[in-house]
């Protein structure tokens, strides 16, 4: 079995992944070339996804305040649980 990656969650920044042996697109199977260490976007704003390009969405921005808990596939407003 190959080496497991190490993932560090940077505060207001990306995931820094070392020993990243396999990074692949789930939809089309695209394999991303990595040198083993990558910074992966975790704010959704990078123009070079899945990699971080330094465009971090500020944590106080309006988009960050629109939070929703437990969305469903139907986008209904209330689902009994």
């Amino acid at each position, binding site marked *: 079995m190959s080496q497991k990656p190490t993932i560090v969650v940077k505060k207001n920044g990306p995931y820094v992944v070392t020993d990243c042996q396999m990074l692949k697109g789930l939809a089309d199977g695209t394999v991303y070339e990595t040198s083993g260490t990558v910074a992966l976007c975790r704010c959704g704003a990078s123009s070079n996804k899945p990699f971080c390009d330094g465009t971090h969405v500020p944590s106080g921005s309006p988009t960050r305040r629109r939070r929703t808990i437990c*969305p469903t596939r139907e986008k209904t407003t209330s689902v009994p649980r």
Partner: protein
Amino acid sequence: MTIHDNRGICAHAARCTDGLKEVFRLGTEPWIDPNGADADAIIAQVNQCPSGALSYSVDGVEHRDREGDPMILVAPNGPYAIFGGADLQDVTWGDGASHEHFDLCRCGHSTNKPFCSGAHWNHPFDVPKPD
């Protein structure tokens, strides 16, 4: 067998409710009907759960982690799906969470960071650029 449902770490990928509707019933309570399909079908479906919210036990032994080489999958408009284990540093894990497969937030809106909470459903972020 016993089906375990760990709601707190579900990423709402909906593999179960899409893949085996007879057992994993969206909008019905209780939402899991263990008699809706045979054990092999349920096990195969539970093994598709990316977040680790679903697992199962047979004869009192829980089957939570899976075999496989480490990989990070990038889900379109969804999270990073980790399989095969990763050393995720300085993170508080949910009780009963698998350290072998889990989903990491990619949109920045999760209510359970760094894990995915499914919040990307209401915040599409991975929209293809126009040509």
